[in-house]
């Protein structure tokens, strides 16, 4: 079974050279720490920066240089800054090659719910709806089950949707799965996790074909 770092490491393996990438808050943010050698990617933050770099050294924080999580950051050499409409032009116009975000629920048709729990305080969708409606390549990074042990990979989402039929791949603490017309297709098992455990933790349709390899993570 993977921890959050492990999920981030596994998704980092999906990165391809010269990709522009938008990472959501939470697990996705960790991916920036595990970029494979020889792979050159640039991170976009939807408040308006491309070429987002690491956190500043202590004492060098700049209130005018933050990411979409409102964290102080630094720009990389070659970075560019722009207004929020241009930022979402990049997103909506499909100039970003990969979007990774968290979710509360994913359905086996690619629907995603990650912004609202009825009856609870609603913080808002931020840029998530624009991101999921636009991106060609969306990976969801999340735990396979919620805190009460209930599957987050469902036949149908129960929470208000963020987007429909948009998720392409899900990486959880248990598995890597593609969204296919037949449902979640199991591609890889987390180290030490059996197919049966994944089946038990998946409420949506699960396609298991042949031998399912174990993820290769250092």
């Amino acid at each position, binding site marked *: 079974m993977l921890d959050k770092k492990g999920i981030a490491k596994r998704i980092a393996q999906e990165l391809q050279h010269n990709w522009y990438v938008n990472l959501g808050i939470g697990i996705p943010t960790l991916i920036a720490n595990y970029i494979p050698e020889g792979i050159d990617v640039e991170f976009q*933050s939807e408040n308006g920066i491309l070429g987002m770099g690491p956190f500043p050294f202590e004492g060098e924080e700049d209130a005018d240089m933050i990411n979409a999580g*409102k964290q102080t950051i630094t720009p990389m050499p070659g970075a560019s800054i722009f207004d929020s409409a241009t930022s979402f032009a990049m997103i909506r116009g499909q100039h970003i090659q990969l979007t990774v975000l968290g979710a509360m629920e994913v359905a086996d048709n690619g629907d995603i719910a990650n912004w609202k729990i009825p009856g609870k305080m609603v913080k808002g969708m931020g840029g998530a709806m624009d991101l999921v409606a636009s991106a060609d390549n969306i990976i969801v990074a999340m735990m396979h089950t919620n805190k009460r042990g209930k599957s987050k990979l469902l036949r149908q989402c129960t929470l208000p949707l963020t987007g429909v039929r948009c998720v392409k791949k899900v990486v959880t603490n248990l598995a890597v799965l593609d969204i296919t017309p037949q449902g979640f297709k199991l591609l890889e098992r987390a180290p030490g996790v059996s197919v049966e455990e994944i089946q038990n933790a998946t409420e949506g349709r699960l396609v298991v074909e042949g031998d399912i390899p174990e993820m290769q993570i250092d």
Partner: protein
Amino acid sequence: MNKLVANAKEATKDIESGMTLMLGGFGLCGIPENCIAALVDKGINNLTCISNNAGVDDFGLGLLLQKRQIKKMISSYVGENDEFERQMLSGELEVDLIPQGSLASRCQAGGAGIPAFFTPAGYGTEVAFGKEVRYFNGKPHILESALTADFAIVKAWKGDRYGNLIFKGTARNFNPLMAMAGKITIAEVEELVEPGELDPNFIHTPGIFIQRIFQGEKYEKRIEQRTVRQRLT
């Protein structure tokens, strides 16, 4: 083309209760601190505020929320604010949540004389309720309308009395878009410079969009999430 006013008080003198305001900024980054303080002092209320976020409890738009001056928020993300949560859950505050990109584009459209446009964002979600759906290239889109405001209030780094503005870093965010969409747009700047000092080739907001400008008295520029890394020693 002299749009200079003395201070935030003069700039906001004719903002009245019940009006719709746009306020630039993302989180606490690039918010018009001085004008917000002036609005708190004025004590007007029933405001509709279009702003990506709603500040924190004791800063930014949170200051207006504390004094119950806001009737309705139009935002994309409103976490980080307990008073906001209380007013929203109790029904004192109306909240219209909009996808962030749609919010940005709706402000830009409002300033650009584009009354409506199609976007894929929000299709199939509650954001699409009551909105026209149309397919383009086989993909569903919803029709979103432009946003405008009685006053837009933006904060820039430098500006001149013609209203030309430049922003610093990610404090740009919604500011140039909202600057276009106000019937009257007020710009507060950290540093007022002489016309001609800003290179015409690198002006972020041309002065035509600005009706009033002043240099803010002071800027706290509070950091919401101070994240740092360790120096290797």
